């Protein structure tokens, strides 16, 4: 049984079909990427998993339990953490307190939550900035803070919505390293939606390709880059990878 099973989900917005009968599985302990051109429905699928939208049809199962139609907070309690493409820090709180809010989901006392949060901040190279207000962080640091906050809820599955977008190549590589370590050392399962192919190719073991709301290809990275349908619709004639 896969950790996450998305089966035939559809979603329309005022008659506009955003996602149509999309299906894919995410095995436990794997790193997966969902790619596709703008408007292909990546973020819609992401938001259906995260509980922001209920699907019009289809089912989503996490650890064997149906989670479609749950609220975002219930999805998080179930063990799925997420980041936002447009970062949403608690601007008026310190970097540490941002993470403590996440850690309080599984910790009873604020003290224990602080201890865990400090560890997580170290992992994401935010330790020295823990006392700064989140509003003072640069974009790369805010992206890291998003990840730190989500990790603090101790998810089994981490959903990353364009966590690398806007990062410089070196910063991107640093993030890739962080995710790889979380995956290997802690067994964290990851699903990323990403435009940065550098990150996708470096991280993902499985890739799903979306086009017009449908999954047109699934496979290993080396299979995907050779798939004619993918090349035609998404990567174009000339690829960077």
């Amino acid at each position, binding site marked *: 049984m896969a950790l996450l099973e998305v089966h035939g989900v559809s979603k329309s917005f005022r008659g506009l079909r955003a996602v149509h009968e999309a299906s894919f599985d995410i095995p436990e302990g794997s790193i997966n990427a969902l790619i596709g051109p703008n408007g292909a429905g990546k973020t819609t699928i992401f938001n259906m998993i995260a509980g922001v939208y209920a699907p019009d049809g289809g089912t989503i199962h996490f650890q064997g339990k149906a989670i479609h139609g749950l*609220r975002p907070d219930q999805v*998080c309690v179930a063990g799925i953490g997420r980041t936002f493409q447009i970062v*949403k820090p*608690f601007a008026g709180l310190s970097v540490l307190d941002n993470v403590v*809010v996440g850690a*309080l989901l599984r910790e009873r006392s*604020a003290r224990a939550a602080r201890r865990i949060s400090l560890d997580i901040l170290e992992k994401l190279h935010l330790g020295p900035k823990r006392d700064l207000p989140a509003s003072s962080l640069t974009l790369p640091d805010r992206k890291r803070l998003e990840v730190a906050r*989500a990790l603090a809820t101790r998810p089994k599955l981490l959903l990353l919505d364009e966590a690398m977008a806007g990062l410089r190549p070196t910063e991107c590589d640093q993030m890739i390293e962080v995710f790889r370590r979380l995956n290997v050392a802690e067994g964290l399962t990851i699903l990323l939606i990403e435009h940065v192919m550098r990150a996708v190719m470096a991280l993902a073991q499985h890739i799903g390709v979306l086009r017009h709301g449908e999954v047109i290809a699934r496979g290993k990275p080396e299979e995907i880059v050779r798939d004619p349908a993918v090349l035609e619709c998404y990567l174009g004639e000339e690829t960077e990878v």
Partner: protein
Amino acid sequence: MRRATAGLALLAALLAVLPAFARGYALSVATLILYFAYTGQAWNVMMGFAGQLSLGHSLYVGVGAYAAGALFFHYGIGPWAGLWVAILLCVALGLLVGFLAFRFGISGVYFALLTIAFAEFTRIGFDHLDWIGGPAGMFLRVAQRDTWDLANFRGPPVMYYYAMLFLTAGAFALCSFLLKSKAGYYWLAIRENEEAAQALGINTFAWKMLAVAVSSAMTAVAGVFFAFYYNNLFPEQIFHISRSIEIILGPIIGGIGTLFGPILGAAVLTLLSDGITELLGALGWELPGIKQVFYGIVLLIVIVFLPHGIWPGLARKLRLDR
């Protein structure tokens, strides 16, 4: 934080011995400051912590006052029993307002309008309720003035001063505890970004309801005090929107979301208001409305130059924030 604790202890000691020096008018001004500090603190739980703007807190003062007042007036039931009825009623009302707003996604300005609407409905309703005297008001018997009768909350002005001091200190302690607890972290997260808070597993509906419940319960207690301190209640006065505004000015001027803001703001505003009255009287400028004009100008200056209120800047200057 050590400096802050020392400062707080000094302030508490000063306030505890104040009645030895202040009598009559000065003592009633001090009581009024504490009253606004307390109600400001209560409002701050909802707005300053959880980010939900209520412009109708006079609802809870009024319902609290009338509940305890009417029980005393009609049945002779003392304020200690009436207090619980007042709290229950106000929490129920608060949860009703909260449920309607949060269940249907009403927030920001629209939420504020809803809170005004509830206070206004209640004002008009109470105006037509003969049981509590309608527009002619309700007057509580004033029997004891020289001895302390705590059972019926009757006594000299100094008793009311100490009662208010006790309440203000209690509210401060409660809020400082809440801020350090899970509720505090969750409320601030909701205030800063509700969507992000929800993504971290926070049931934002439930925690916002808790903020409303705590805030309305605290304000209900102020209402009971109001009834037994002033002994006369009129719907037109107690539920009026200007009363709600009075409550929120203290924390706004002092610093929204801070623990000391409501106290500092209440002191500054009350002293200013009374100071202006005294000054204008001494100068012989008895133009109608001139007090409000001065008051408004001072508010404007504070808001323009200290948009976060007086306290945050002051705390940095006095190094109380570390």
